[in-house]
């Protein structure tokens, strides 16, 4: 037991960060599963983090209320900006949401009386327990798993594959996109609220471009084919800097190299059930569920090496 307590003392923060990052990765996975490359999740995380922290620090709200606020605020913002934004597609949506993220960051930076400006918020009470993060991850996973199998999840997939065809079949594309966007924002906000009450301090630079890229990287690295991918990606991106500690100054450099190598040699991410099936030719369990339910965005059915491994 001693060893575990030691381990927990040193690494509890790291383990909980994995959980928070998993939530973030799942939040962007949700919009990706609907064919939207929305990069505003860092901003939504920031909105959630600031809302929740201000609720506990200034209003003295109990933690559950703060968490609820941290979910509600970004969801509302997403509903507000979703209308005009989600008409855009592809790269334009990515750029618009990146731009929105920067606007949020600069606004937080300038609303000094409320947010502390560049100095950030200090002394946030450490209310997040380890099981809060665990429960949050499990609830979100269950919700998304259920959603994927539902009518709505199938509608997301149809919209991703071909929006025009989907709307011709009577699927309300805009409403579904809005749902994915707002729900993703809520999950990102929850992650932000939990993280703020874990790390004692938040500042505007944490929720900028780099964080947005990090979140996207986790999901792409893990694989967008299912719920396992984002969680795996979050695990790896969070632990990688620790594992590469012996490389000192060059460890973040390896981060970049690994990202490039994954994109080049594992196009569907690390977690790719079809590749695994290739290893155990004719895996019997695979028939029950279509592995395509949530394969990455518009990968054309171009000839691909079945193994996807290094050539």
């Amino acid at each position, binding site marked *: 037991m001693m060893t575990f307590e030691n381990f927990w003392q040193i690494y509890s923060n790291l383990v909980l960060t994995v959980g928070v990052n998993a939530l973030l990765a799942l939040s962007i996975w949700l919009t990706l599963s609907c064919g939207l490359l929305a990069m505003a999740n860092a901003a939504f995380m920031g909105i959630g983090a600031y809302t929740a922290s201000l609720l506990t620090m200034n209003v003295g709200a109990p933690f559950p209320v703060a968490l609820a606020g941290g979910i509600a605020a970004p969801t509302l913002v997403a509903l507000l900006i979703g209308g005009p934004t989600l008409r855009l597609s592809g790269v334009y949506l990515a750029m618009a949401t990146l*731009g929105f993220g920067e606007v949020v960051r600069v606004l937080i930076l300038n609303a000094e009386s409320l947010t502390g400006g560049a100095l950030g918020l200090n002394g946030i009470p450490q209310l997040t327990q380890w099981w809060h993060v665990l429960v949050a991850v499990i609830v979100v996973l269950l919700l998304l798993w259920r959603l994927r199998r539902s009518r709505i999840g199938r509608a997301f997939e149809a919209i991703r594959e071909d929006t025009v065809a989907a709307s011709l079949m009577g699927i309300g594309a805009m409403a579904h996109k809005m749902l994915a966007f707002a729900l993703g924002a809520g999950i990102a906000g929850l992650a932000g609220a939990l993280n703020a009450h874990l790390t004692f301090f938040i500042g505007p630079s944490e929720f900028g471009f780099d964080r947005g890229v990090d979140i996207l990287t986790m999901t792409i690295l893990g694989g967008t084919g299912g719920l396992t991918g984002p969680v795996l990606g979050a695990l790896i991106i969070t632990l990688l800097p620790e594992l590469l500690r012996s490389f000192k100054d060059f460890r973040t450099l390896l981060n*970049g190299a690994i990202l490039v190598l994954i994109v080049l040699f594992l*196009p569907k991410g690390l977690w790719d059930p079809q590749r695994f099936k290739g290893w155990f030719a004719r895996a019997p369990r695979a028939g029950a569920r279509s592995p395509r339910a949530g394969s990455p*965005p518009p990968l054309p059915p171009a000839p691909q090496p079945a193994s996807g491994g290094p050539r």
Partner: protein
Amino acid sequence: MLGQQLVNALSLGCVYALFALGFTLVFGVLGVINLSHGAVFMLGAYAALQVVTRLGLPLWVALITAFFVSALVGLLIDYLVLRPLRKRNAPHLIPMIATIGIAIFFNNAAQGVFGAENLRFPPDLLPEAQLHFAGVQVSVIEVAIIVLSFALMAGLLLVMRKTQLGRALRATAESPKAAALLGINVEGLFYMTSATAAALGGVSGVLIALYSNAVFPLMGQPMLHKGIAVIILGGMGDIRGALIGGLFLGFAEVMSVAYIGSTMRDAVAFGLLFGVLLLRPQGMFGKVLERKA
């Protein structure tokens, strides 16, 4: 006072335009949002700095070195990363993520090799003299940046509009497959575009490092964010748009600093970007590319 602000805005706008030219060229021809452009920009500045400080050579040699070093880097990026992704027909999101990895790699490599601190070019490199013109001050480097951005844009436009090469490039941008069927060496054009864009990025890195008197490993990142705003304002892949978008952003920023306050400068830039995307997603001057089934 207003005259000085206008000149400041013009030079800042041209700084942005200079950076955005290569960025928009790659998007226009390859259809890739090259997020490593900021890193190449930084490498160009470091290459020039090494030539000037270590070898003690004059600035024009440094500029030429920066040009070729960054062109080589661009070529390598294209050959090692973008080409395999093209071969695989990867959706456009994928090369963008790969270039993020490249940017992380180079930014941290520079930090490891040259250190994180802010380096400067030796002060006697450029003539100190400020040019005075109707009560307005302009430095030599500002004039160089303004002249060069207009000249480069004119040159690029001329090549794109009037030459066989430009026609081939435009055909490739329209449809690589059809262009290849017509006997155009599409892969060669892709290499050339990547190398040219990177070379432009490297040279603009030197000029902008001289302009702001700072060379540091992450110097490309803020420029990259502004570059994204510029090519959206001007229309993605549009060469004229890079200059117009850059100037527009420069004016908006300088005016907001002058009349609203310096803290809101970035909010203005990205607010503009957000607004333009909502109202005219094709950019202020881009053409409408509606794709319906």
